[in-house]
């Protein structure tokens, strides 16, 4: 039986971790970390077959964070799931740390180095096809940002994934509608996004990316697909959970200052 309240509590904890570690480093990307938090909580605490004490187990499910700048949500989730101690958060973006600015394979539980947009879906596809070759039951989950879909390589991978029937691959698009500079429809309009994925041969799902129940049900539904790769367009709010960060492009790549941190943590109690 899924304990939704517990997952909601974990998501809040992870959001507190995100704003705290970025604020301490006075750098990093809180906005797109906060938007993705509920999805990562569902994957790591409910869906994925993983063992934090054996992060490299061959049979494990994988999660590929292609939007590598959202490293705070990755580190917070992995630490709260037991891959390493939350004590390491203070080392985020500091010298001699395992918690690099963008996700790097040296961190226990991080399956791919990212930071240059557009590469993770291809990587996830390679890992998914390797699993099929070995008839290994593992599944590969990946996440791209919506702004990241500007990258041509995403669509190279999209074409290849359906061509190779990678039905063990489930992709989340974190549809928070904001990219580095501005709103996505001002920079490069992505719509009709669902139709694009459909046209590339994917089974398309949409969900509220902050409704834990809905995310769980959507993933489980997606996993039933026997041929096509699946994409879940998760409608999210950039900066979700911190009022002054929500829907605010300024907090894509800017950390809270001391006063803002106090306010943010109060909202995330």
């Amino acid at each position, binding site marked *: 039986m899924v304990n939704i309240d517990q997952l909601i509590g974990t998501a809040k904890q992870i959001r507190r971790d995100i704003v705290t570690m970025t604020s301490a480093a006075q750098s990093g990307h809180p906005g797109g970390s906060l938007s993705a938090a509920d999805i990562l909580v569902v994957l790591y605490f409910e869906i994925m077959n993983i063992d934090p004490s054996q992060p490299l187990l061959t049979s494990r499910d994988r999660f590929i964070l292609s939007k590598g700048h959202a490293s705070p949500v990755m580190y917070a989730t992995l630490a709260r799931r037991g891959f390493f101690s939350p004590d390491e958060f203070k080392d985020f973006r500091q010298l001699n740390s395992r918690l690099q600015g963008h996700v790097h394979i040296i961190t226990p539980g991080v399956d791919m180095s990212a930071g*240059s947009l557009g590469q*993770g879906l*291809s990587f996830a596809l390679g890992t998914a*096809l390797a699993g099929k070759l070995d008839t290994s039951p593992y599944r590969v989950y990946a996440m791209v940002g919506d702004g990241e879909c500007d990258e041509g*390589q995403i669509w190279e991978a999209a074409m290849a994934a359906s061509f190779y029937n990678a039905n063990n691959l489930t992709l989340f698009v974190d549809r928070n509608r904001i990219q580095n500079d501005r709103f996505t429809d001002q920079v490069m309009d992505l719509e009709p996004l669902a139709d694009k994925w459909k046209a590339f041969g994917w089974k398309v799902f949409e969900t509220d990316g902050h409704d834990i129940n809905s995310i769980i049900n959507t993933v489980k539904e997606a996993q039933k697909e026997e041929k096509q790769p699946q994409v879940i367009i998760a409608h999210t709010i950039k900066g979700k959970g911190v009022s002054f960060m929500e829907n605010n492009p300024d907090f894509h790549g800017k950390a809270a200052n001391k006063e803002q941190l106090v306010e943010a943590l109060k909202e995330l109690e």
Partner: protein
Amino acid sequence: MTNMESTREAFGKALVELGRENKDIVVLGGDLNKSTMAIMFGNEFPERFFDVGAAEQNMLSMAAGFAAAGKIPICTTFAVFGTGRAFDQIRVGIAQSKLNVNLVCTHAGLLTAEDGISAQSLEDLALMCSLPPMTVLTPSDGPETVSALKAAIATPGPVYMRLYRPATLVMHESGSHFKLGTIEILQNGSDVTLIGCGPLLESVLNAAEILKEQGISAEVLNVSTLKPLDEATLVKSITKTNAVVTAEEHYIHGGLGSMVASSLARNYPAPQEFIAMHQYAESGPAKPLLEKYGLSSNGIVEAAKKVISRKK
């Protein structure tokens, strides 16, 4: 009688053999499989062969994903596309993660001749040598290609291997001497060291013959591992000759000449002349093209005399 063999054909055959021995090998290609000869593997092991179409970025990142899952991916395409089009994917996804991806590119250097400058790869060595964990292999002939491929597969980190379109002079026995990270001394000499890699080695050997007739003794080195460079053998040779000519089908900056100069500057400074490209070339048949841009035996002979005259 001289025996010619194309490095890419040797590569294709070796792939099949290695694929039979090692089930973890997967091969990726980008709609150039008949040219790179990767198709030979594809025909034999269709389930382990992935043609991703003309999409090199996807190919290299997919290979990283295969490697992370324990496979031994071999990416195949032309040198201009494999190193240029997908450079960022190699840099972030493969080199920075030190993943076991082998990138084997054919049609390197100037010898895609008639196809013109977009297809002539004068920058691939510079690009690949700029990546700290990358091993860069430049086998000179068919047998060396086979040995280098085996070594690449046995090497845990990323490897770039540079092959060529035309047949090249076979200088080695099969199952040869090749040892990764070692410079091969093809000929001993005392007045000047001539260093080559790839198909230009034939011209280097011819140049050494011409010089011999003129009373000049040339030592000839084959650099089939460009990175990491075998500095010990290099320095030992230059300590003897005190003059060096490098010859490569590549832009003057960032390739064999640069690697040798950088090593000598740190270890044993000596006058050096560079046989290399100084500009983009043009379409044309291979031989006249090489002649026009000075990548020829005559060019090497002149460079050797010049560098000897610069000795103190």
